[in-house]
């Protein structure tokens, strides 16, 4: 920590030693500050807003995947009682930003009726606005579009392959370290495998929605949004208005998982309709309409080739992913990059090929790249261990990377060895037979144990915050953070409270509003670190200003303590070298004649930190499956994860994030898949009945061990990310457990019942 911050660092709490450095709030398992609102239905989501004069918009969507709309029966739609207007490419008012141009940094090309072309099934092809939702919905049906159909390209055989300029968001398409050929020539054992992951959809409980209301050239948008400031800038560009004229209110999100960080076509159209009609417009996508214009996890076909010497030491690692994208955008699942940070191989090559399909554009979805890539890598590692006759954990330890493979950079912190040890001990891994098919339970079910390593990088977004110390000694803390349900309302308030030396209930916290200071993107598992650092520094700034008042005031017991420093604790400043001398914030403010003190911060990562260090969270996941030997039905019966992600702000919420990730990993391994008809390109299971995510009864007792990890480097608050890592080790762990139970090595996800027969 920097000296000026540590001079008024919050005081130790009376609780256990590990939390002592962090004060009375951070580190405590507070329940959600928004919990009561949510369980009583009083938390308002975007679609809960009903401004006076509201009308309803519904998108008509294409039922073909490629071609053009030849005709629509607009008269029929307009004749339907209640229908106000129909937006089509023929009458769609102009936009100030070309939707066929990308909008940096994260904006994709969007479908906003710029032409009559159809590039994927479920693409918006018209917008119907009506006095009621029912009328707008029926109006969209009555359009009865006629198409010129071209053959859909939705599989590996018909898609167009290309060499991508980049993968993910601005990532390199290939990275090479060392001499791969030499590595393979030195290998005593070589292993090759092909792995396939399906298209998956975010399926946040809350669909994408917007309530848009214009007042002259100012617009207020109620919408679930993971990136308030960035989205304001994008909407301002699309509508040709100053960015300060766009207000986004997004107090709560019913899940986002990446899909609500990117501007999408339907929301833009609804905002456009509101401006055109001079009435507030509400648009809520149906579940089925979310399978297209709002992103997904793109399909991958991955090849892995691993060389090992006779001791099981990797000599070469080659990971190649063909990742699918749309016909008109370039986002590619950076799956192969999962092989970069984890295992010590003297030669590593990761590379990507693009495959253009007639689908909606994929985008970031919880652990983009890492989830798909580690699913393949962790199975391949298990196969490599098998090929070397080694226990999978011993194999991983043999190839443990002490520094970042390839770059040789030191890790800012890496407690992966402890994760392995604690997870394995808790799971009972040492009792695992090496060969598959050795274990049965008392009912005769096949039992298998598998493991996977979890890893996720630590990005950091610039963020701003404001902390106001008020006359009564409480504080108002503000930043435009987004709570997707993960608990940002709570964890960020805890960080702010700690910085201010106040209890959390003395801190009024405002977030989810774009007029507040920019808190960056709630994505990349970086929100707590990014917004948290800004809050920490804003709180520090407020305390520093308060300290200045006190130490320079002869009437204060703290007068003259400037060089010694003070400690902020429980609403009072204490002289560092003599805690008997102290004064409350309220007293200091009252005597100064100021009604409040405002601290601000603009925070960002120190570039040297990232250039000199490898920054990752780590973990290890252990899974037990049981499989009916006759029927092939698989059930995960135990799941133990151990994760090290720097400092834990709120262990209750962090555990919940790990659980959510692990459940998603289970879903990836055994359940989720969007099924596309190869002839038409239509997704045939675009609803929650048939797109199967696990139900509670599929989820075994979960354990997530929070491994202690101190990281004084990654950022001044020592926080890494926890939102996405849980998914990464779990997929492979379950697939490997299935192999261990049956001897069947399944390389295509999800693993299905027929794979077991």
């Amino acid at each position, binding site marked *: 920590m920097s000296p000026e911050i540590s001079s008024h660092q919050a005081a130790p709490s009376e609780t256990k030693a590990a939390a002592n450095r962090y004060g009375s709030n951070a580190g405590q398992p507070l329940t959600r500050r928004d919990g009561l609102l949510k369980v009583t239905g009083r938390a308002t989501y975007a679609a809960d807003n009903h401004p006076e004069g509201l009308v309803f918009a519904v998108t008509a969507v294409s039922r073909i995947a490629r071609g053009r709309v030849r005709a629509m029966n607009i008269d029929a739609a307009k004749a339907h009682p209640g229908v106000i207007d129909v937006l089509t490419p023929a009458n769609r008012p102009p936009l100030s930003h070309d939707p066929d141009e990308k909008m940096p940094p994260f904006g994709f090309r969007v479908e906003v009726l710029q032409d009559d072309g159809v590039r994927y099934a479920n693409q918006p092809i018209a917008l119907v606005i009506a006095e009621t939702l029912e009328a707008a919905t029926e109006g969209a049906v009555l359009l009865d579009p006629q198409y010129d159909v071209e053959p859909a390209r939705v599989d590996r055989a018909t898609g167009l392959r290309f060499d991508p300029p980049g993968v993910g968001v601005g990532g390199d398409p290939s990275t090479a370290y060392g001499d791969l050929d030499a590595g393979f020539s030195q290998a005593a054992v070589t292993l090759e495998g092909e792995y396939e992951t399906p298209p998956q959809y975010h399926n946040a409980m809350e669909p994408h929605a917007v309530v848009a209301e214009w007042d002259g050239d100012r617009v207020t948008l109620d919408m679930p949004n993971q990136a308030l400031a960035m989205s304001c800038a994008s909407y301002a560009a699309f509508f040709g208005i100053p960015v300060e004229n766009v207000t986004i209110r997004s107090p709560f999100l019913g899940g986002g998982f990446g899909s609500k960080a990117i501007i999408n076509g339907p929301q833009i159209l609804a905002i456009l309709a509101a401006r055109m009609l001079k009435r507030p417009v509400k648009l809520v996508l149906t579940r089925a309409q979310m399978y297209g214009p709002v992103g997904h996890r793109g399909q991958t076909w991955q090849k892995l080739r691993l060389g090992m010497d006779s001791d099981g030491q990797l000599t070469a690692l080659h990971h190649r992913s063909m990742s699918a994208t749309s016909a008109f955008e370039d986002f590619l699942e950076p799956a192969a990059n999962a092989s970069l940070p984890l295992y010590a191989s003297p030669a590593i090559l990761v590379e990507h090929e693009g495959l253009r399909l007639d689908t909606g554009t994929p985008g970031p979805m919880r652990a983009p790249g890492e989830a798909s890539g580690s699913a393949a890598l962790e199975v391949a590692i298990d196969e490599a261990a098998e090929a070397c006759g080694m226990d999978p954990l011993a194999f991983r330890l043999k190839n443990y990377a002490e520094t970042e493979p390839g770059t040789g950079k030191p890790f800012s912190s890496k407690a992966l060895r402890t994760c392995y040890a604690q997870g394995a001990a808790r799971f009972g891994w040492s009792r695992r037979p090496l060969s598959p098919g050795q274990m049965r339970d008392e009912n005769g079910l096949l039992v298998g144990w598998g493991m996977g390593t979890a890893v996720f990088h630590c990005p950091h977004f610039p963020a701003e915050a404001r902390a106001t110390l008020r006359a009564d000694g409480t504080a108002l803390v503000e930043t435009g953070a987004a709570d997707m349900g993960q608990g940002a309302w709570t964890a960020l308030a805890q960080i702010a409270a700690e910085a201010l030396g106040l209890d959390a209930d003395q801190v009024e916290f405002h977030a989810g509003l774009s007029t507040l200071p920019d808190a960056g993107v709630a994505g990349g598992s970086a929100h707590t670190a990014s917004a948290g650092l800004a809050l920490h520094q804003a709180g520090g700034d407020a305390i520093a200003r308060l300290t200045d008042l006190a130490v320079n005031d002869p009437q204060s017991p703290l007068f003259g303590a400037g060089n010694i420093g003070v400690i902020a604790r429980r609403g009072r400043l204490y002289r560092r070298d003599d805690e008997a001398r102290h004064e409350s914030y309220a007293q200091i403010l009252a005597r100064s004649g100021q009604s409040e003190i405002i601290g601000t911060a603009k925070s960002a990562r120190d570039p040297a930190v990232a250039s000199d260090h490898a920054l990752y969270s780590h973990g290890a996941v252990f899974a037990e499956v049981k499989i009916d030997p006759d029927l092939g039905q698989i059930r995960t019966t135990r799941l133990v994860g151990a994760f090290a992600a720097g400092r834990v702000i709120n262990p209750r919420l962090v555990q919940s994030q790990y659980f959510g990730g692990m459940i998603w990993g289970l879903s990836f391994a055994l359940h989720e898949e969007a099924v596309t008809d190869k002839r038409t390109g239509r997704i*045939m299971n675009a609803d929650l009945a048939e797109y199967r995510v696990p139900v509670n009864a599929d989820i075994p007792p979960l354990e997530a061990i929070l491994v202690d990890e101190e990281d004084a480097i990654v950022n001044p608050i020592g926080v890494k990310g926890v939102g996405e890592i849980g998914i990464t080790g779990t997929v492979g762990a379950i697939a490997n457990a299935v192999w261990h139970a049956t001897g069947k090595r399944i390389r295509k996800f999800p693993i299905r019942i027929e794979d077991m027969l």
Partner: protein
Amino acid sequence: MNRFDFIRPTSLADAVAAGTSPGSVYLAAGTNLIDLMKIGVTRPERVIDISRLPGLDRIEWLPDGSVRIGALVRNSDLAYDKRFAAAYPAVAEALLSGASAQLRNAATVGGNLLQRTRCAYFQDTASACNRREPGSGCDALQGENRLHAVLGWTEQCIATHPSDFCVPLAALDAMVEIEGQDGRRELPIGALHRLPDAHGATESVLAPGDLITGLRLSESTAFAAHARYVKLRERTSYAFAIVSAVALLSMDGDRIKASRLALGGVAAKPWRASAAEAALVGQRATREAFERAATAALGDARPSGDNAFKITLAHRILVRALTLAHQGTPKVLPALPASPFPDPHSPAPKGDLHVA
């Protein structure tokens, strides 16, 4: 959703009279109908709300030991009726393995019988489907069909009937009571649903205006001690069957006096396995006998697409249902009804249940 007339008749006669006019549908709980209206598969001109018709929400025990179940009895109310669950345990188990708790609390007995197929091509109005639009074709035939029918299908239609409840009903020869234009009549459930033929895929024998008013199950004490319904699905709850089976055994020592067997998820109707029943008469209850019965049940099975594995699974689920039924009806319903996984709250099953 299209605009429609909504009427709420107060008598059965008024309901049937209204239901006879073209474009009419009956609405009870709406757990299937409303979804289909939202996605445009059903676009009725007139919705007749029968949910408040008097007298259809009762479970009545008749002097001969049979039971009459009103069409508006909720799925969960029937399953949790103690006397019913004791008399027809496999029916209760099937009911509780269907849908979700919320849906079971709403869905009615009559509606369950007439729920529509879950075939994605039936639900997708842009696809050809002979069921939805006679003569348009069947896009499932060359499409995504791994969960489609393996028995009784034709190129006109390869869809399956999704009900769990109907599977034990078929085994028990439930009688379906129908009020129609020409008064009251009744049918065995095996004659209610129709298989597709060379020309089309009519779903049932019901005529316009026909309204199911109730079900009757005859006394079946002989089977109550050995009754199981088992269901394979792609998640533990809230999923339709990949395949399912009911097995009801009447035992005489270790010999099978009689059996009632049916399969679910394999055909356009709940599939009574009569040949398998015949194969078991007088047999000792052994794995070999169960295997022979399953072979007999699936003698005519053939894949309709990418689903040959369903024949294997149907065979095995029937063997499993027989094995579990032979072990005896559980004293309490398993926590996960119809799951092939052992109930964590029950003693481990014994015998030849698990053979590698």
